[in-house]
């Protein structure tokens, strides 16, 4: 039988995974009874969700004034965290869609977790504009819906672009995520009993893995990936235009779109590392998440870190080179003004720390990568803080300069958002296969009768 034997497939180099069924065994066991560690994390996350909604409820009750925002700093921690989460989302789509189109051999093991991260991160990010507006009860006015007063949103406003970009991104990435999970939910269904079996039967939509299903599925998946690729690049560009379209010195820059996209992938890949390191440890996925994967992600981090660093430097250079005094003052203030600590945190975490990734030994050390990834997460949050706050607090009119101090409510919501994200991610690891079962099988050598017979002989 000539047709089925010749394909070269990037086999997983691990002695424990020989057969297709082994993947099901290893992955589906994660869905079993949760251990102590999981419960601890889950309880912490659930408490944080309480903090999140408690703080938000307090803000709704009292008014947006419980934040530290003021004039001139009308945007602060909420927008910072919004951009942070949108950025985090990006690497998930990068890994699941862009690397899929490029046929990168290392994506299969991590893409499901990365994609789930995308969905939950966009879900978290999407809450922040709602948290941020002064009149939540009128936020639906940003959505174009027919009404008796013929009022439509202003499509020239970057915020309306944002509404379209973020909802599209959430819809498409959720659909993409769900679609990719269907065959694996079917696998879980076939292994489960009782209530879970019923649940998986419904959400697997009756997937049987027939030739016809796989045929259309494969094509649909490619098209979705092809659509998601420009989408992911556009979403953070649109988010960056929230700033770049404004005339605020420090925001009004053409470099913003690529700069933000690179930063998004930088922070997102770091977050994937932050999430997959414990995932690998807790659920014993060492066979699937190897140092090869982490090495590849670290290289991606290094590349994007260099792009981001270049963007920082070019911003400072151009502010100086332009000779425009207000622009110069804005960037001088960024480095040495009231918020110097935020800027230097950003430069250290995003520019200096990733230099260590040049060393192969660091890239192959999972604990080192974990620590570096956390530095990058912190640095990227501060990057957005620097952009949002330091630009606003010293603008054109010196008389109106001011200082913004985040309030406890804002911190509660910001920290709570991490728990809200973690809450969903933890549920995901228990309810849906966190490693793509079907796609992993594509990279395993297919079981062939002839080879097996020869081996036995």
């Amino acid at each position: 039988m000539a047709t089925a034997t010749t394909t070269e497939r990037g086999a997983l180099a691990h002695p424990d995974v020989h057969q297709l069924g082994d993947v099901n065994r290893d992955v589906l066991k994660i869905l079993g009874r949760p251990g102590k560690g999981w419960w601890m994390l889950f309880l912490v996350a659930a408490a944080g969700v309480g903090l999140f909604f408690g703080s938000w409820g307090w803000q709704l009750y009292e008014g947006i004034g419980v934040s530290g925002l003021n004039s001139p700093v009308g945007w602060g921690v909420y927008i910072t965290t919004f951009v942070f989460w949108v950025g985090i989302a990006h690497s998930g789509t990068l890994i699941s869609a862009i690397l899929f189109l490029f046929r990168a051999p290392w994506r299969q093991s991590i893409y499901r977790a990365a994609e789930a991260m995308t969905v939950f991160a966009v879900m978290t990010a999407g809450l922040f504009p709602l948290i941020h507006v002064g009149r939540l009860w009128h936020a639906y006015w940003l959505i174009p819906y027919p009404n008796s007063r013929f009022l439509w949103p202003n499509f020239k406003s970057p915020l309306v672009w944002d509404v379209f970009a973020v909802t599209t991104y959430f819809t498409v990435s959720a659909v993409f995520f769900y679609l990719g999970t269907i065959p694996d939910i079917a696998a879980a269904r076939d292994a489960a009993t009782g209530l879970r079996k019923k649940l998986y039967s419904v959400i697997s939509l009756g997937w049987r893995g027939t030739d016809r299903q796989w045929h259309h599925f494969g094509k649909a998946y490619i098209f979705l990936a092809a659509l998601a690729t420009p989408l992911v690049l556009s979403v953070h560009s649109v988010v960056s235009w929230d700033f770049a379209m404004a005339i605020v010195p420090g925001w009004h820059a053409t470099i913003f779109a690529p700069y933000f996209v690179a930063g998004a992938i930088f922070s997102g890949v770091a977050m994937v590392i932050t999430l997959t390191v414990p995932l690998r440890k807790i659920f014993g996925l060492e066979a699937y998440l190897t140092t090869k994967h982490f090495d590849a992600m670290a290289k991606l981090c290094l590349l994007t870190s260099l792009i981001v660093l270049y963007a920082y430097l070019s911003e400072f250079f151009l502010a100086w080179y332009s000779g425009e005094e207000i622009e110069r003052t804005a960037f001088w203030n960024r480095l040495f003004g009231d918020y110097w600590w935020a800027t230097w945190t950003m430069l250290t975490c995003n520019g200096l720390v990733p230099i260590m990734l040049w060393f192969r030994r660091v890239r192959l050390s999972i604990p080192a990568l974990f620590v570096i990834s956390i530095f990058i997460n912190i640095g990227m949050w501060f990057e957005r803080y620097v952009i949002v706050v330091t630009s606003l607090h010293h603008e054109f009119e010196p008389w109106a300069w001011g200082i913004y101090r985040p309030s406890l409510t804002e911190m509660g919501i910001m920290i709570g958002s991490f728990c809200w994200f973690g809450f969903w991610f933890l549920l995901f690891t228990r309810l849906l296969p966190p490693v793509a079962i079907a796609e992993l099988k594509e990279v395993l050598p297919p079981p062939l009768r002839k080879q097996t017979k020869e081996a036995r002989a």
Partner: protein
Amino acid sequence: MTASTQGLLASYEYLDSTVDAIAGLRKAGFKNVKAYAPYPEHHIEAALGYGQSPVRVFTLVGGLTGTATGFAFTAWTSMDWPLVVGGKPIVSIPAYVIIAFELTVLFGALATVIGLFILSKLPDLRPAVIYDPEFSSGRYGVYVEAPTERAGEARRILEKEEPVELREGTEVAHA
């Protein structure tokens, strides 16, 4: 399935057995041959003689609809109640490109999924009468629906490739 046909389901451990069984059945002239696999396997698709999936038409039509909707909607709403902001033209095409782009992707993606569901007849929540749970794990399957008088011939072809299991039964009439 009618009384004059009979369904046979063979489970295989090996990919080459599966492909050979499919090839054998198709060579013998059986029309209703269906394969199961735990992952997308293009060798099986090739053996079954698949061409291009029409999903792409859905994607294209959905995407173009999105583009057109994006431009038309933004321009129309702007002219519906013209308000000048920032001294910009009422219809500012560059700004609307973004909306048009996002709707292209959104409509394209949703149309793709709708296309997939229509073409592969999902969701289908009727219980499977004949199905092997191992198909989502490590086994391949070949199902053939043969006229009663040719059931024996089909069974011989399937058995020739050493199935782990061979069952008679009906398959819910989907796909």
